[in-house]
């Protein structure tokens, strides 16, 4: 058996579609219609309003509202706090995607083989995914607490540090790394499950054939496993990208209002709900949305390959 790699949309030669009734054609659309209405009302409509609002001067403290073209975008880009949050968000994305996909793949490889208690491990692994970001932020604020935190006491007992450390709040990269870890803890389980599902679909014969050719260990992973799980990796990367680019809860709880580790979303919240400049808030939201879409499409384009066995 061999794996066939095909780009999305590439036709398969020699196949002919069967005739379908009107009912068969309409049925799938009817079934997804409620979801489409839901998405349209709660996601698409607000997105359209946001896109419109981004080009309107809308400051509750400086009425009236009026069309301002790119004025909101110029204002946000000239705001040093926004620029800082953009830089920080870049770091959140790098840490978030690399760590969640890397760790997710690692755990998936570990869990690929059946062992006693594997089901329990899988269930426990998914728990962080089920918790709200705010709850995770609070839990980790206790773990990272510079006075009572478990991390400090464990590392000090192990002799790794000589005194309790302030993990968040002092240095930009360090603060962002630790806050990212909290989110990575949340999103890695989904990456692991996606990759694990893809791993389990790979026919065993492929590994046997590769072994016969002398491949083993890391070579097997690199030449057989990873190429065949590319679709899952693409989805995991997109998930990591979306979550990291839009990180808010963990930053809000662990970083409060400091610029040290602020994110694009906390800055958007600040502009809209504290500064009451809704136009600039819309502009930053739109920027985040467009960036998310562009980077996601890029990730899919680079990583995704259709796999058939």
């Amino acid at each position, binding site marked *: 058996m061999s794996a066939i790699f095909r780009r999305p949309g590439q036709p398969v030669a020699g196949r002919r579609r069967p005739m379908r009734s009107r009912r068969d054609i309409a049925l799938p659309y009817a079934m997804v219609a409620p979801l489409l209405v839901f998405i349209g009302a709660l996601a698409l409509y607000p997105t359209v309003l946001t896109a419109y609002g981004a080009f309107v001067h809308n400051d509750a*403290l400086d009425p009236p509202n009026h069309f301002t073209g790119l004025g909101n975008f110029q204002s946000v880009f000239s705001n040093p706090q926004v620029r800082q949050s953009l830089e920080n968000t870049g770091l959140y994305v790098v840490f978030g995607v690399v760590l969640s996909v890397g760790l997710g793949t690692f755990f998936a490889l570990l869990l690929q083989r059946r062992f006693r208690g594997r089901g329990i491990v899988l269930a426990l692994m998914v728990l962080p995914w089920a918790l709200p970001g705010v709850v995770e932020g609070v839990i980790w604020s206790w773990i990272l607490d510079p*006075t009572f935190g478990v991390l400090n006491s464990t590392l000090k007992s192990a002799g790794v540090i000589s005194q309790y450390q302030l993990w*968040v709040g002092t240095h930009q990269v360090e603060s962002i790394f630790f806050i990212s870890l909290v989110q990575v803890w949340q999103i890695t389980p989904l990456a692991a499950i996606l990759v694990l599902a893809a791993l389990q679909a790979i026919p065993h014969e492929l590994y046997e054939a590769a072994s016969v050719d002398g491949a083993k260990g890391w070579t097997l992973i690199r030449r057989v496993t990873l190429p065949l799980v590319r679709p899952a990796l693409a989805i995991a990367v997109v998930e990591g990208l979306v979550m990291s680019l839009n990180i808010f809860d963990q930053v809000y709880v662990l970083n*409060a*209002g400091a*610029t040290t580790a602020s994110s694009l979303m906390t800055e958007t919240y*600040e502009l809209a709900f504290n*500064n009451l400049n809704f136009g600039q808030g819309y502009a930053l939201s739109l920027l985040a949305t467009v960036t998310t879409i562009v980077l996601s499409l890029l990730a899919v384009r680079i990583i995704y390959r259709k796999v058939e066995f």
Partner: protein
Amino acid sequence: MKSRTWLGTGIAVTALGLGVCAASSASTVKAAPASASIKGQTINVDIAYPAPKVLLAQFTKETGVKVNWDYVQWDNLQTKIASAAEAHSYFADVADVDWSKVGEYYETKWFMPLNSYFPLAGVKSQYPQAASFIRNGELEGMPMDSSMLVTTVNEKDFKAAGIKSDPTTLAEYETDLKAISSKGIAKNPLDIPFAAAEGLSTYWYELTAAFGGQVLSATYQPEFTSPSSAGYKAMTWMINAYKSGLVPKAALDEQDYQAFETDEAHNLTASVFSDYSGDIGTIYNVASESKVVGDVKYIPTPGVNGVGSNLGNPDGIGIPAEAKHVAAAVAFIKWMEEPANQAAFAGADGSADVISTFPLPSNRGGLADLVKSNKVPGAATEASLLENHSRAIFPAGAPPWYSQFSNAVYTNIHSAASGSESVAAAISSIASTVKGLDG
């Protein structure tokens, strides 16, 4: 005069004054009689306090108005108010009006002026912190409590360090803290919440007042830019306290209540210069969560030349512009303001009616009832401080752009404490923010 003698005199005079006010206050603010026009209505109330269920049931019985009291955490509540108001959507008939939002609401017209329901003359005479809710003669909300910034000390720690009387000046205060630290009683005795949040801003305002000044003038010009100004000195003092170890290093990440509950309540620190009124009853004397029950007390805030001011940071309640049941809302607010109810919220009647975290009654009648009940430790001291030393943070009221100003304050002070920028750079950044906002 020693601080204890002064304080005792102040308390006695205040008690007498409040007693006179209590006698006259009963006729000033009363619950509206059950009116046919509001009977049967249901109002939504969004407040950052849990509901006093027993008293609320009485209100419904008296007026026929049912209250859906939605307890929303303060930050979330401000977001909710902003979202609903911007969308011109109804969300509640009565909602929180924080002192810091009064300027904002005056500009945005998100809340109805209450002048026609609560005559200004009466409000000013009965409410020590009325000024915080009046902007250009418009009453944006009624004070719901008399929260103010106060200094608390762990009396046991101070005595253990051999300190025989409460500090009355900043110099004495600093000396006492250093003594507590050097004797190993509390290695880092001063609690300052340096996380980039509102609690850091108000801490700076309180210290600025202690240094004999204010952060903004009556025309909202910065008064802290010169190194000899009170605000500059206050910030320098705070940063030096952190860097010298008077303040725990962990405080860099701690917001106000987090710091008080983690540090002061566990005796890791010995004093909070800018604490919140009511914290003794709601944090330090709560046996299940505190290790300093009975040890912490309020003292007159030490200033550079003697007793300093206690700046007010009260919460209020108002009627959103989109409210549906205005008459019922007014009746509810009047009921909330009744002195007996205000005293009950603060704990005068026992735990059934107390509102957890409620600091002090908003009006003089309520304060008198609370002091008379003798049920809340430190109430008499707080009432004295309120009457004799309390003032609004900004003489002209909070500016409309207060949120942005506060953001500049706490992010820059936090950065200065973390070492990312100097005090001079922080001051300069805050001042230029003010200039940009004030136009």
